[in-house]
C-alpha cells in the first residue's frame, strides 16, 4: 500500500513543477526507485493511473527504473552491493551498514506540453 502514499507525493511534485513551467499537459514522468524501497512497479503504475484522473497528468505514462543498492560497512568501510535479504560484509562478516545508494525514490524528469509548444504546433 505504500505505493499509494508515494504516488500521492509524486503527483503533488509533478503538478507543481508542471505549473511553474506553464505546462498544459504532462505526457511522461520518469522516476528511479531504489531496490530497497521494494516498489512493485505494477502496483505503482496502477496507483498512478488512478490518482492522475482529472488532472493535467491524466493519461501520462509513469516510467520506473529500479536501481540497485550500495551498502557501506560501518565497521570496515567496505562498499558492496547487498541483496535485499543479505547485508553481510564479506570483509569483516558483520551486518552493520549504511545504505549509501538505492534507498531513495527520485523524480528524474517530466515530459510535458507547454503553451508555447502548443502555439507552435497550431501555427504549423
Amino acid at each position, binding site marked *: 500500500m*505504500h505505493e499509494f502514499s508515494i504516488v500521492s507525493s509524486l503527483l503533488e511534485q509533478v503538478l507543481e513543477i508542471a505549473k511553474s513551467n506553464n505546462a498544459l499537459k504532462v505526457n511522461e514522468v520518469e522516476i528511479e526507485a531504489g531496490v530497497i524501497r521494494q516498489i512493485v512497479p505494477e502496483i505503482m503504475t496502477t496507483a498512478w493511473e488512478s490518482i492522475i484522473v482529472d488532472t493535467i497528468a491524466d493519461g501520462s505514462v509513469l516510467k520506473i527504473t529500479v536501481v540497485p543498492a550500495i551498502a557501506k560497512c560501518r565497521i570496515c568501510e567496505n562498499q558492496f552491493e547487498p541483496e535485499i535479504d*543479505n547485508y553481510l560484509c564479506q570483509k569483516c562478516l558483520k*551486518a*552493520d551498514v549504511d545504505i549509501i545508494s538505492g534507498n531513495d525514490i527520485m523524480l528524474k524528469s517530466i515530459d510535458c506540453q507547454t503553451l508555447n509548444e502548443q502555439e507552435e504546433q497550431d501555427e504549423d
Partner: protein
Amino acid sequence: MKIKVIKHILAANDEIASLNRKKLADADVLGLNLISSPGSGKTTLLEKTIPALLPERSSVIVGDLQTGRDAERVAKMAVESIQINTGLSCHLYANQIQSALDDIDLAQTDYMFIENVGNMVCPGEFDLGENVKVILYSLPEGDDKVAKYPTIFSVADIILLTKCDLKPVLDFSMQRVKEDLAKLNTRAPLIEFSSKTKEGFDEWLDWLRKEKREHVGRQVGFVKE
C-alpha cells in the same frame, strides 16, 4: 518539453521529519518509533515501560486505523497520550506527528514513544523524526519473519522478541532467527522479552536510558562521536 528534475519524492515528509527531530532534540527528548505486526504487544510494552522509567516521563502518540483504545490504555501513565486514526493508511506520516507534537508538553517529557500502525512494511518507509526504531516481533508470528520482512529488520536499532513466555508451547527456532539476523543486522541488540514475566525487561530499560544519554547528549554536544 522534457524537464530534468532530481528530487526526492518523499522530500516533503522527510523535511517535516527533520523538523520533528529538531523539536525533540531542542527539548532533550528521545524519539522512538515502535514498529511491529498488529498484536505483537506494543501497547502492553508501553504500559509496563512508562511506569518503570519514572521519574523520567513519557508521552505517547499512537497510530491505528480506528478506535482510541490504545491511547486510552496508556493515558493514565503518560504525560500526554494522543491517538491518531489513520483510516485506510497503513502507516503514520511525519506531518501527523508534527501536529500531535504541538499538543504535547515536551518540557515535561523525556521519552516520546510513537506507536506506529501495526504493519511490518510501510512504517519503515516513512521517517517520522524519531531517533531510534524499535522493532517488536512476537513468538506466535513464527520464526521465519526476519527472512520474510528483511527491510524492517535491517533498519532496526533494537529488536524485542516479545511473548517469550510462550516458548515452552511453541516450536520456535531461536537459532533460525539469529542466523537470519546475522545476515541483516548485527548492530541492533536482540532481546528475548516478555511483558508478562518481565524477562529481558531490565535489559530493555538499560538500553532506553543508554540511547537517551547518547542521543540527547549528542544533540546538545555533550558526547563526541
